[in-house]
């Protein structure tokens, strides 16, 4: 569906369903240089199982207009505006990577608008390697290649996709290549510069799920340990043999973790 959020035309995938104010809502927030389609299977499932789904394209991404939001805090403050535009009071937030940080920060800042928060592939801090930042700054294709090389576990680098006939890394590459120049760098800087994850985590009052990939080298499970410690009540699910592209590598396991939590 199309919405106007903070003056910009925004797209949100709803699973081909109209929003029903009587139903609970989930907002899915993608990561850097991505769009709603990274949640294709999971978001469609919930849209057809009693939830409103808003799998957004963040500003400057996918089908949404505007410029990319330059910080995790900015995305966190944008999510309530999205809910306002959709006439939704509150929602569960599910975020991946950069989106997980935005979901965490939003839940801390806007606790009345967030019922639950699921962090998929989070890290605190989410430090981005200098060569990747440099390549992204230059809009060098190498940045996408580095991300692809680091986002999939060793086994999945050679395929074996659950979705028949789709070449995982090729598909991820084409999605990143659709990103407008400069957007990846803005996204990575937002991850890199987010320093308040642990403070925000300490302020959370809603239920939290953390899903990590045991083979994630973009946001290694050890980088989520401090976050987990700051969220003593959080449910933690670690997917074996899974890299950072959790929803693509193990779509059913991610869905099942979300179903059990939400």
């Amino acid at each position, binding site marked *: 569906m199309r919405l106007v959020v903070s003056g910009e035309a925004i797209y949100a995938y709803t699973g081909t369903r109209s929003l029903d104010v009587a139903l609970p809502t989930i907002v899915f927030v993608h990561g850097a240089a991505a769009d709603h*389609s990274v949640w294709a299977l999971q978001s469609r499932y919930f849209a*057809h199982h009693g939830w409103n789904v808003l799998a957004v394209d963040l500003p400057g991404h996918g089908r949404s207009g505007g410029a990319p939001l330059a910080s995790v805090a900015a995305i966190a403050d944008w999510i309530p505006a999205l809910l306002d535009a959709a006439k939704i009071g509150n929602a569960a937030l599910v975020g991946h990577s950069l989106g997980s940080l935005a979901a965490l920060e939003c839940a801390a800042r806007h606790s009345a608008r967030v019922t639950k928060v699921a962090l998929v592939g989070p890290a605190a801090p989410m430090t981005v390697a200098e060569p990747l930042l440099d390549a992204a700054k230059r809009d060098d294709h190498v940045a996408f290649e580095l991300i692809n090389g680091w986002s999939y576990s060793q086994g999945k680098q*050679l*395929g074996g996709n659950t979705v028949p*006939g789709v070449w995982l890394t090729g*598909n991820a590459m084409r999605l990143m290549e659709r990103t407008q120049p400069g957007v990846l760098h803005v996204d990575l800087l937002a991850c890199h510069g987010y320093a308040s994850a642990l403070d925000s985590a300490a302020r959370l009052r809603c239920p939290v799920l953390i899903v990590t990939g045991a083979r994630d080298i973009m946001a290694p499970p050890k980088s989520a340990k401090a976050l987990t410690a700051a969220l003593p009540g959080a449910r933690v699910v670690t997917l074996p043999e899974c890299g950072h592209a959790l929803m693509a590598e193990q779509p059913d396991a991610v869905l099942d973790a979300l179903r059990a939590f939400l």
Partner: protein
Amino acid sequence: MIKPRTTHFDTLSLHAGARPDPATGARATPIYQTASFAFPDSDHAAALFNMERAGHVYSRISNPTCAVLEERIAALEGGVGAIATASGQAALHLAIVTLLGAGAHIVASRALYGGSHNLLDYTLPRFGVATTFVDPRDVDAWRAAIRPETRLLFGETLGNPGLDVLDIPRVADLAHEHGLPLLVDSTFTTPYLMQPFAHGADLVFHSATKFLSGHGVVIGGLLVDSGSFDWDGNGKYAAARGKFPTLTEPYAGFHDMVFTEESTTAAFLLRARREGIRDFGACMSPFTAFQILQGIETLPLRMARHVENTRKIVAFLAGEPLVASVGYPELPEHPDHALAQRLLPRGCGAVFSFNLAGTRAQGRRFIETLRIFSHLANVGDAKSLVIHPASTTHFRMSADDLRKAGIAEGTIRLSVGLENPDDLIEDLSRALHAAGKI
């Protein structure tokens, strides 16, 4: 400096899409010879049908053995995915019917495989789809043929049988300028010799019967999506806006799914599988997929040898008095020589034609005297093959169309195999000698 992780072509040929079978540890990809797949429970079944979970339901729609092959060809082509089909013709048909319907128009190279020409020139008009054929070398002709209702440009990487080299970068630019995708038949080149997506093509298909399987034992096709085309026209190809409603508007056949919203990168494949394979049903058998996978494992080795043998035979024929001309783009006199050097630096394949200077009777004697070359209608076998296009593969074409496609009465097409090249040259030499005696 940190370098991106890359897996090379040869390695992908052996491994892409495959892994030891999780159930048994079998290292070779198993042949999942089953029509259906059991559901764990009702909710899972419903989720599979509604694309909320991924997996296999029924082997017409997808099959684990075929899926390995689909991933492998997508990896080798640099695409997002693929669909395995019953034949190369089925792959071409699937591409067309996924994108367009009655009232639409195609612009195609006139130097096409005879079967493709039949489909476009004789069969599709019955369903309201018209095609204009153009000289593949004339970009202005491609441009002039585009109409408001045009939805697809189509050519072969190497035209059949004259080996016209398609200037993919220029034709793709033209297509994109008009908001149209370029579909390329890459059967003769395989991704070993050229990856059309890297030059701007949007969709590729193969008759996997040929070099991909490599041994002349199966019939199969593969349709590959680059994932690059902007079907909505919201991005880089504004002229595409409104032209592809099968992908951009709600589809009543799948709960009003809008394929470009469902999948940003693989909308074409999604529609092709959810409609084209589902409804037309031209799927590949898992046994066929297994055979093609076996072939692709050695594709780099075979293609290198095919080209090496072909170069030697081309050089031999070029020096024979009974041979009027040899059409191979690596020869300086071929009209596409410079383009071939740019697009096909590893070689121009192993299928080419030459013209005998003599009579039709001499041509018949030549073919019938060959002992190693088999006289049959196929190319891309490990074994060397020969045919007379005017009386076989292209016999339905008019004399004028034959001339335009570069086919003469004395044209002989060879598909050079993997035998010792000295034996092949001896075979050809003896046949030429016999023909010369008439």
